[in-house]
Structures are given as C-alpha cells and as structure tokens.
C-alpha cells in the first residue's frame, strides 16, 4: 500500500479562481494509497516547499503529487524539494492544473472535476514510479576533429585551448582547406593566407593537438564519451619524422609539369610535392600515379627508373616502400568539419540528377573559368603572382563577365538550394578585378543579390558604385567563341532586352556542394544527411551544431553552404559543446531511458529498427555452462534518449521506458 502525499496549489488566484482547490484536496484524500492531501496558496514558494518536505519526512511519503502548473515550469523545483527531504526525485510528479485546466476553463464545477481527474491520473501513475538514479557514463576527455579546413582548425584550437587533447584528421597532405586557396576575403578584403596561415602554424605547434594530415577516418565504434576511432594514415612515401622540409626533392623531381590541384590546374607541380608553400605540415608527398619510380615499377621494370628525390634528400626521408598504416584513438566527442566541394561545371556529373552546364563550354573554351580559379589568379601566391591574366594567351582581360548561381537555385540543373556565398565572392571578384585592372569592365549576371550579413550589402554596393561593376538581372543562355573573345548571350530581365556581350573572360560562380564521399562518413558516425548530402543537425533551430548521434557535432560547410565567419562561429559553438561535455569526468544523464526485460525478449529486434539513435545492441544470453540461450536486445545507456518508440513497437512489450512504463500509463488510463 503506497503512502502518497497530494499537494494542491492555488497559484495565488491563477488556479484557485476557477478550480476549487479545497474540494480537489478533499476528494484526493479518499483515494486509496493517499495518506496526506492538502492545498496551499503557493506550493512553489519556500513555505510551500517546506510543507512538502515536512510531510515527506513526518509521514514517510513514498510518492508526491503536486497539483500546480505545468511540469515544464516547476517539475525540477519540486523534484529538488523531494530529494532534499530524502525522497527519490523520480517519485515526485506534477499534475498540470493551471495551463491545462484553470487557465482554459470558466465553469468552476467542471474545471474542478477535471482537476480531480488530472490529479488522479498522477496519483495512480506514481504508485508505479520506481526510484531512479541518474546515469553516469565515464567520458574520454579527448576530441576528434575531422577536416582541417578553417572550421576544423578553429574547433581544434578552441578545444585545445580549453585544455583538452584533440586529434585533427585531414585527408589532404596539408591542412588549410579551401580558405588557403582564396586570395582576399569579403567583406573586409583582408588576405586569406595572412589570417589563415598563423592559425595553421598554431595547430601544428599546439601541445594539445595531434595533427594527422594525409589521413582518413576508417571506422568509428562506441558512443558519446567513449568512441573508438580507427584512422588510416595514407602512405606519403616520405618519412614525416626524418623530413626537414628543405624542398630539395621538389627542385630535383624530373616531372615538373603536373597541373596542380591547389592552383586548380592553372599552375604546375612536381610528382613529389608540397601542395603550397605554407603547407602544414610542410612535408612533401609523392603522387604515385605520376611519379616515374612507381610507374616504372608498375610497368614491371626491374631497376628503379628514377630516384632523384631519394638521392638529393639529406635526411634520407624518402621511403618508396611506405605502406598505409592504421592508428586507433579513444575519444569522447567528434567534430565533423569536412567542408564542401565545388559544383563541377562540366558535362560529367557523379549523379544523374545533376545536368552540368554544357552551354558554357567550360573546359572547351579556355577563358571560361570558375570562381576558385579566379581566386588563384587574383592571389599573390597564385600562378600569375596575383595578376589577372587569361589562361589562353596570358593577356589581360579588359572585360570579364561573371555568372552567378552556377549549380544553385536551378531545378532544371538539379540543385534548388542557394549556395549563399556566391553573391559575395562575385562582388569581391569584381572589386579585386577593378583594383588590379584599371578600366577593366566587370559585368555580373545575377538572379537576386543575397547579401545578408554585417557589411555585406555595403560591400556589394561598393562593387557596383566604386568598382563600377555592371549588374544585369538575368541568365546567360550560351557562350560562343568569337575569335579570341567570348560572346555572352543573355537577357537583362529588367529592361527585358536580350544582350550579347563580347568578353575576354567569363567567370562562373559555382555553388558549394556536399563532399562526394559524405554518405560513407555519415554511416560510420550513424548521422543523417539531406538529399543534397549536407549533414543534418539535431534540430534546425535549437540544436544546430549537434547531430542525432550524441557526442557528434558539426562545424562549417559540411552542414550547409557557409562563409568563413559562419563556419568559424559554428566551429567555436561545436567546441563549446565539446568542452561542456568534457567539463565532468562522468557524463550525467536523466535515467528516463529504455530497459529490456531480457527474459521475455525474443530478439526480433523491431526495437533496433525503430530506434532513432541506434541505442539497441545485441547481447548473447548464456546459461550457466556458457552456452548461448538466445540473443536479446540491450539498451546502451549512453545512447538512448528516451523516446520510447521501442516499447510501443515491441510486440511483447519486453522493453520498458523508465518514467513512462506500461504499468504507469495503464494505471493512469485505469483512473479514467
């Protein structure tokens, strides 16, 4: 027989006005199991709470029902009070007599009857409440950051500065990401390299950061606070310890004419190379597909075809036999900052929903380039040393036409979303062009100008008013070669006139797209992604940097198109989340999670199918002699979030959600 105390709150007049609290208290008095039932003006007030504590102590209550406001308002308050009096907080429940009763009804009689009913629900429910203990999971207070772009760098530094170890994994030979390729940045036009390089160096030197460049995440096991991550360290063919980054190998590499990725094919690199001078780590890697030594071996030539780099290498760091190796790291949290790729303009598209832009002859017409190539041309460290010159003949373009929304906001081309950054970088290009080529004519075809952001719209105005960029609202249908110029056929929808412009160069403002291999990474982390391949946040408004896998966070353009400030802000936010998680050795969680009755469980694993968090694990049930009797479901306490979908789905109800068990709901329904 339970000993339940009922405490009905008038909430001043709020409840008392329409609900006869005295009658409610009296009625509940006669309910079997109730040993104490009173009403009071303000239960949440100190004297109110004192009444509850006192009753718990003096009457040895084993359950407390507070009829007051919404539990969202005061559940914590009253549970704390109960705990203070030595009652397990989960033996205290609230009946919502205010928001769900007094505030929405006028008829005093019926409101009171309903209030009695609501309180009754809770009295019956609480008879089946179990004392629950907060769940504590040990946390491995080290973080993994995937991706060494600006977002990854920022997150890594913030966490490291917070005093926690970070493992930063970058798949390219150097960190830096797309930002390292940019010339200047909008809206301030400060030089990208100048602000990025110091951060990169900081990463390399930070005692709390372990940088694993030219590496990729192979597999992820475990759950929040306790991930085991296997990382593949791709073979550089160069010993990272021995190499001193002198660069002799590159000078002497016979193969000097390889279109460089970093310069988007506008500049050349060698077979053994460092992607760019400021690379971190400053250690070269051998491109085995291009290197004479490996090609020779592939052809089956016995003696080494080439070994120049090895010959000239002082510290003998070249290691032609190096193989991929693996390391496994224990981490408590993971920040995903894998960034983006650019829309590939050509006809070849990895997905058949994407159409490409054959009509712009990218690849066929040499002076049709994309935005990032323009960045390289404009960059002081770029192939032209910062001069804007045509790839075809190295002449200075007098007229450049910029086309916005290439690969974005166009259903016909397979992408609806807005890439967010293009309006701004085109404005930047126009301004840079104006700076570098006087009397240069910049013409921009746009659909809309999206310049939301601090100083952004001003920046666009500046492109138009100070740099005299001509903005035409409309699309371009086709580019034609016209001698050594490009004839741009488009339409100015504001004047309604078709326009044909002879341009020396055309720059396509290509959109941000999700990384091509995102699906496999998402599966490793069991996080979801939208149909464009951008990773999904846990909640679009309230949990923008979390994912639906606890302990995995997002930063930067892997979640959606983002510019640098947004990415950095998000990275810091993710870092804050990680540091918050790391603030305790033990991770505390509400014990309102699912529990499997393994005797009754048949192991059909419907629960596994419906669990949004992958919290269901398979466990072998063994008999005394260690023989497997059956395989049953088990709930991972660290992962379960307590939605209870498993229980409603379980045909035999062999899994229970603490706090909302079948017995509790049944009892409440019984009280109808």
């Amino acid at each position: 027989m339970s000993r339940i105390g009922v405490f009905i709150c008038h909430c001043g007049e709020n409840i008392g006005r329409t609900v006869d609290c005295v009658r409610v208290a009296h009625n509940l008095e006669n309910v079997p199991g109730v040993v104490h039932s009173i009403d009071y003006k303000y239960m949440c007030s100190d004297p109110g709470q004192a009444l509850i504590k006192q009753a718990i102590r003096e009457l040895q209550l084993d359950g407390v029902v507070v009829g007051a406001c919404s539990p969202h308002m005061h559940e914590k308050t009253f549970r704390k009070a109960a705990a203070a009096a030595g009652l397990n907080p989960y033996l205290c429940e609230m009946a919502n007599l205010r928001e769900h009763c007094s505030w929405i009804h006028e008829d005093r009689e019926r409101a009171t009857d309903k209030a009695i009913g609501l309180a009754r629900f809770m009295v019956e429910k609480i008879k089946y409440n179990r004392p629950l203990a907060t769940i504590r999971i040990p946390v491995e207070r080290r973080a993994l950051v995937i991706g060494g772009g600006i977002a990854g760098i920022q997150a890594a530094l913030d966490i490291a500065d917070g005093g926690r170890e970070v493992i930063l994994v970058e798949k390219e030979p150097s960190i830096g990401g797309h930002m390292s390729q940019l010339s200047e940045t909008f809206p301030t036009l400060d030089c990208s390299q100048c602000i990025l390089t110091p951060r990169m160096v900081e990463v390399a030197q930070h005692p709390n950061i372990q940088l694993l460049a030219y590496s990729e995440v192979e597999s992820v096991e475990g759950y929040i606070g306790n991930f085991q991550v296997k990382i593949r360290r791709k073979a550089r063919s160069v010993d990272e310890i021995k190499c001193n980054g002198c660069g002799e190998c590159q000078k002497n590499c016979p193969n000097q004419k390889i279109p460089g990725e970093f310069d988007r094919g506008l500049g050349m690199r060698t077979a053994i190379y460092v992607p760019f001078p400021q690379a971190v780590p400053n250690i070269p890697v051998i491109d085995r597909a291009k290197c004479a030594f490996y090609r020779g071996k592939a052809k089956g030539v016995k003696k080494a075809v080439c070994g120049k780099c090895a010959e000239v290498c002082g510290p003998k760091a070249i290691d032609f036999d190096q193989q991929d190796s693996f390391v496994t790291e224990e981490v408590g949290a993971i920040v995903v900052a894998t960034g983006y790729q650019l829309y590939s303009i050509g006809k070849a598209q990895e997905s058949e929903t994407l159409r490409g832009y054959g009509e712009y002859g990218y690849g066929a017409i040499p002076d049709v380039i994309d935005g990032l190539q323009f960045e390289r041309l404009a960059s002081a460290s770029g192939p032209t040393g910062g001069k804007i010159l045509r790839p075809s003949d190295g002449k200075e373009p007098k007229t450049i036409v910029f086309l916005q929304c290439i690969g974005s906001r166009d259903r016909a081309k397979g992408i609806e979303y807005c890439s967010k950054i293009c309006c701004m970088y085109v404005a930047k290009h126009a301004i840079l062009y104006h700076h570098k080529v006087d009397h240069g004519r910049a013409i921009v075809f746009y659909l809309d100008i999206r310049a939301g952001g601090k100083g952004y719209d001003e920046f666009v105005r500046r492109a138009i008013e100070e740099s005299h960029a001509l903005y035409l609202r409309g699309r371009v249908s086709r580019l034609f070669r016209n001698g050594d110029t490009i004839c741009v056929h488009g339409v100015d929808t504001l004047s309604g006139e078709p326009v044909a412009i002879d341009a020396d160069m055309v720059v396509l403002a290509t959109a941000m797209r999700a990384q091509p291999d995102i699906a496999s990474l998402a599966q490793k982390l069991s996080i979801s992604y939208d149909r464009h391949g951008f990773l999904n946040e846990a909640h679009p408004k309230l949990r923008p940097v979390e994912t639906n896998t606890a302990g995995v966070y997002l930063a930067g353009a892997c979640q959606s198109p983002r510019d640098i400030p947004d990415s950095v802000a998000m990275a810091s936010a993710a870092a804050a989340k990680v540091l918050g998680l790391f603030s305790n050795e033990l991770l505390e969680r509400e014990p309102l999670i699912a529990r499997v009755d393994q005797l009754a469980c048949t192991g059909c694993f419907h629960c596994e199918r419906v669990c949004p968090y992958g919290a269901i694990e398979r466990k072998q049930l063994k008999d005394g002699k260690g023989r497997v009797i059956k395989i049953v479901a088990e709930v991972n306490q660290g992962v379960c979030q307590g939605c209870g979908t498993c229980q409603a789905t379980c045909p035999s109800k062999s899994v229970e959600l603490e706090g909302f068990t079948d017995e509790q709901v049944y009892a409440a329904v019984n009280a109808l």
Partner: protein
Amino acid sequence: MNIRRMIGKTDLDVLIRDLISAGKRVIAPVRCGDSQHEALEYAPVRSPAEIHWAGPLPLRSLKEIIFPPTETLFGWKQVKSSVEIEANPNGFRETVIIGARPCDAAAFEIVDRVMGWDYRDDLWFGRRQATTILTVACPHGDESCFCPAVGLSPESARGADWFLTPADGGFEAAILTQKGEALLEPYKAQWPEPNNFSKQQLSGLESKVRANLKVQPESIRQWLEKHFDDPLWKHVALRCHGCGACAFVCPACHCFDIVDEPEGIDRGRRRRNWDACQPALFTLHGSGHNPRKDQAARFRQRIMHKFNYYPARFGEVLCTGCGRCVRVCAAGMDLIAILAEIGRRSEEAGAAS
C-alpha cells in the same frame, strides 16, 4: 422407471415451442454460421425449424452450457482501505438440451464426480440442476469416433433425461429420470406408448466406430502407470503446437483459471475462465520456472490425467470418445493412434510378463 412414448415430429415441435414460449432456454444442434463447411454447433434456438437432427458432431461439446468459457464469480469495489464484494447473480436459467449426442451427455456425469468431490462446485451443479437433457441416438460417426473403446456407444443413454431413438416419422423416447418425467408430464396423456417394447436393434454405427480403436482402458492405465518417463512422449509430442484447442472442444476437460479483471482503479470482477494444460503458461511459476518444461511433459499430462489419474481416483476415464480433439487438431495429433500404440505396448508387456 421405464416410461416410453412415441413422439411424432410435430408433437416434438409443439413441445419445443411450448418450452421456448415458457421462457426456457432451449439448446440444440444448429447450423454454425460463417463457416465454409457444413458444420453444427449447440446453440439456443428460437424455433424447432432451426434444429439439425442429422449431420456431424457439433464443433464444440455441450460443456459450455453448464460450464461457460468465462463467468463472473463476483465483483469488487475498493473503498478507502476496505473492499466491498458484490456477489454476481448467477441465475441458473431453466435449460432444455434437445438432440444432445450420447458422448456429450455422458460427459456431464463423468465430470460431476470431480465437481462434487472434495469441494462442491455450486455453479456447476446449479446449472446441471436447471438443465434437462434429451439425448438422441447418434446419427453420424466418422473415423475419429471411439466411444465404444471408453465404454460408451452411439446408443448410450448415459447422462440423458430422455433418450430419443428415431422411429417412423418421429422418435421413440425413453424417459429415464424424474426431471425427464416432469418434462413429459403435460404431454404424457396425449402421446401414445410405443406398441412394441422390443429393444431397438443396433444401427450399424456401433460396429463401425468400434473398429476405429480396440483397446481396454484398464490396459492403457496399467501401461501409463509404469511409463511416466518413456521416449514415447517426446516422440508423439513433437508436432503439438501447444494450443488449447483439444481441451476446449473436449466435453470432459474442465480445467479453469481464476482472474481478477480490473474495470477501473478501485473496482473489477473476479472471473473464472476455461484453461488448458497444453500451453506452457498453464504451469509457469511466477519465478519463471516451469515444472512441465516442454511439450512432451505437457502432452503426457493430458493423457495421464484422462487415462490414469482420473480412473485411479474416480474409476473411469475422463474421455467419452467423441474424437473432437482428433478432428480439431491442426497439427494432426491423433489420440486414437496414440491410444492404439499404448494399447499395443501394454499387450506386449502383458504377454512378456
């Protein structure tokens, strides 16, 4: 008592109409609805026309007339910390069963023994008392019948108040009990006595169904007594799905379960429901331990109960050979085959000793 009457078809109809209009519950074999095969069931009738005298054995036995699948024992209501009991008015309605098959009628007498043994089950006897049974000579037997093997026959009048034998255009009725006589009273005068008192000669049915199973219950019992642990059980129980169908259609099975069924927080009813020994749940302890751990043990219990324990205590087998368990089993469990096998083994054993 040896009262006999010739009852014409129309006379019988009159009797039935009178009973119905007198507010009595009249149960008889009728066509069973929503079944794609020609099947009968015992059910209340509103007019004599509904009654099927011929045709196969009704799907379920007469048991449920006296012993319903579920019945309320009492209701309860909790007030503060005490409980109020409201007795359930188990009014025993006057009932007349017309066209009962011998194997069903006989079952009542057999079960009477256990129902009135150490504790007298008032619900059972209350209904028994209020029920008059008009048995009819069995019109139809098949390969699953074996009443002769358990000491009955298609013409057995056991448990009957009247026994009806078809005779030209109607029935020759033998009135066998006071209850029967009371029922006859209003018509005693106008219905003629049969002219020849000669015992009706047996129809071919007796010999036909006798061929289905030739065993002596006693020899079965003797074997069972010595073979609680016998590989036979594991072997025969393999195909058993462990449902309660055989027990629920059996006229003699009488196990029940008592449950308290809440109808709200503070009130509910205590009911007794049919139960059966084949489902594992029957003997499952709260601890999770089950003394009859597999189907072999459960099936053995069924046979032992019917053909060993019951005769040991009450002197006769708990089976009337109606064969329903054989017909109804979707897994092809065949009591006849099993009893035959046991009989054979018993013979051998006997010969051996």
